[in-house]
């Protein structure tokens, strides 16, 4: 079985879905001839032609808006936003339309749309190329938020996202794009949305992470008997998997790259406090990015949670 990095795995997923279903098409800035700025769509223009691999004008709201029009018509568009920091012009389309078309038309129109965007820091990119604002989307009912953590699950999750009958925001960690390789099978396999992945089982502490932070959580947990949950889908998230683990360990450390205040860790923490408080042996700890404007690249390593910071968090909860 071939070993692929995440760029190649996502490319394979797009290719296979486009072969399987003529209604699937990709649109975005530089996705055609250039193969995308990260080369995720490399070779797809040659295989599928400009009607299905569409280089659009530079207009994020227009890209998502047009993709919504395609989706309600019955196509399965995948819209690429070049970087998560550039998605904000499209928020009106995502929040005011994609998320609510099914509801406001009482099911007459649906929006099976995937918006893919590279996110996160760690590749020494310019300003606004390193954002991790996934919580914005989790707050909005009617859209799903998916964050793969490896080439294998990126492929499986993208297949599920494209086939999902509702809009999905699919966030790809730029730092993971080429940093890990693993075996990715060709052909059908899908990973269900809304189900967390139990990466490792242990009984002393529960670590919850997603996307690029999973690797750091794994490193921090070396030598510790930890349950590690890779959330994969942030919205709707797998409450049951979290409760099950918390009931077992009684200790929780939540790790994310985004700023702490109103980050998705706050939602997880509140959920655990509401429904599993009596199983807790220690306060819940969040190891996150800081409440600071995402710094330029020279300081990005100080901004992102490190394995050391996570380890400190684990030690903290283990005191109880």
């Amino acid at each position, binding site marked *: 079985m071939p070993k692929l990095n995440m760029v190649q795995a996502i490319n394979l997923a797009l290719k296979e879905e486009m072969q399987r279903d003529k209604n699937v098409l990709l649109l975005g800035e530089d996705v055609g001839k250039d193969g995308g700025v990260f080369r995720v769509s490399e070779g797809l223009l040659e295989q599928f032609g400009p009607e299905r691999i569409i280089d659009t004008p530079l207009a994020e709201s227009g890209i998502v808006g047009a993709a919504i029009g395609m989706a309600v018509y019955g196509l399965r568009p995948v819209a690429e936003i070049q970087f998560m920091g550039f998605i904000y012009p499209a928020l009106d389309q995502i929040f*005011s339309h994609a998320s609510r078309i099914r509801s406001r038309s009482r099911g007459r129109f649906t929006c099976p749309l995937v918006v893919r965007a590279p996110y996160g820091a760690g590749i020494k990119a310019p300003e606004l190329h390193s954002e991790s604002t996934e919580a914005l989307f989790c707050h909005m009912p009617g859209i799903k938020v998916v964050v793969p953590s490896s080439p294998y699950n990126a492929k499986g999750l993208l297949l599920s996202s494209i086939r999902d009958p509702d809009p999905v925001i699919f966030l790809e960690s730029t730092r993971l794009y080429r940093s890990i390789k693993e075996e990715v099978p060709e052909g059908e396999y899908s990973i269900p949305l809304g189900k967390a992945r139990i990466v490792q089982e242990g009984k002393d502490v529960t670590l919850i992470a997603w996307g690029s932070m999973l690797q750091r959580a794994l490193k921090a947990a070396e030598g510790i008997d930890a349950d590690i949950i890779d959330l994969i889908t942030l919205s709707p998230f797998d409450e049951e998997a979290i409760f099950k683990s918390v009931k077992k360990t009684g200790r929780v450390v939540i790790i994310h790259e985004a700023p702490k205040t109103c980050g998705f860790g706050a939602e997880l923490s509140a959920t655990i406090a509401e429904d599993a408080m009596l199983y807790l042996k220690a306060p819940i700890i969040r190891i996150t990015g800081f409440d600071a404007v995402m710094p330029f690249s020279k300081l990005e390593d100080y901004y992102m949670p490190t394995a050391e910071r996570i380890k400190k968090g684990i030690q903290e909860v283990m005191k109880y």
Partner: protein
Amino acid sequence: MVRFERTINMPEKILESFNVKHLSILDEKGDTDESLMPSLSDTDIKMMYELLVLSRTFDHQALNLQREGRIGSYAPILGQEASQIGSAFALEKTDWIFPSFREIGVYITMGYPLHMLFQYWSGDERGVKTPEELNIFPVCVPVGTQVPHAAGAAMAIKYKNKRKAVAAYFGDGGTSEGDFHEGMNMAGVFKLPVVFICQNNHWAISVPREKQTASKTIAQKAFAYGFEGIQVDGNDIFAVYKATKDALDKAKKGEGPTLIECFTYRMSDHTTSDDASRYRFKEELEAWKPKDPILRLRLFMEKKGLWTGQYQKEVEGRAKEAVDEAVKKEEAIEHPEPKDMFTFTFEKLTQRQTKQIRDFQ
């Protein structure tokens, strides 16, 4: 020392120039320019007239119901009926329509059930569950955001190789929004089968048309995106119909998009929550009264022997009956269930929603 000088002439060249056209066919006295008259049978013309009267009757009744607290805020179309009915009359049921929030005339022309329109304005989402045989997108409240949807649906039509077109409706205010420009630009770049219909009613709540854009016309904005724009007398149903029909035929032949500016006037308030007397002069309103789109068609029909007092009575009677029937039907619909708010968030309920919905069971 001798200096040799060479004289070079580099006059500025005209690279492109545009002419913005205005089309009108039917004047205020009910006379027409026969050379421009679109092909419409007497039956068609009567049908147009009856739709104008029905829409105005609906509008009037909606205002009454709002004042009585039987529906919520309502956006009247008074004065804009010809722009809506004239354009929708050219559309086929298989075409796709992306309206804004002031298009009941379009809905009525396409055969949308009247009681569902009241249902929408009464605050019941079931009112915008478009019947299967129509492709009218639900009312779009965020201004201008429907324009890229129209471009996207047109891309899908082109990709699927279907002989259909898309109509996007918006107002003069909408043309200031970024989404209007992004959608228009895409339509031009990809030569999409879409017709952009701007009802320039001269007011975006309290902001007059001149403060919305420094362009002399809305129509000319199309030229910047590489396709045609035309201004039509928006109170002249024949001009609106002809421009829309021509644009739709062009779109369906694969010859790209068109922008139609319907030059009309909002005779009423922005919505029932607004009071236009705070910001506009009565004289302006008075000046537009003789341009009324219904009166104009009536005068035309009278001259052609298609209109009599008796006919008027019948048309008004039928419209009133249809509207009353719709109100009765709407008010008999059972109140939505609180749990309905969850039903269509996603195809399936989430773990969390399943718990929350128990509050209502």
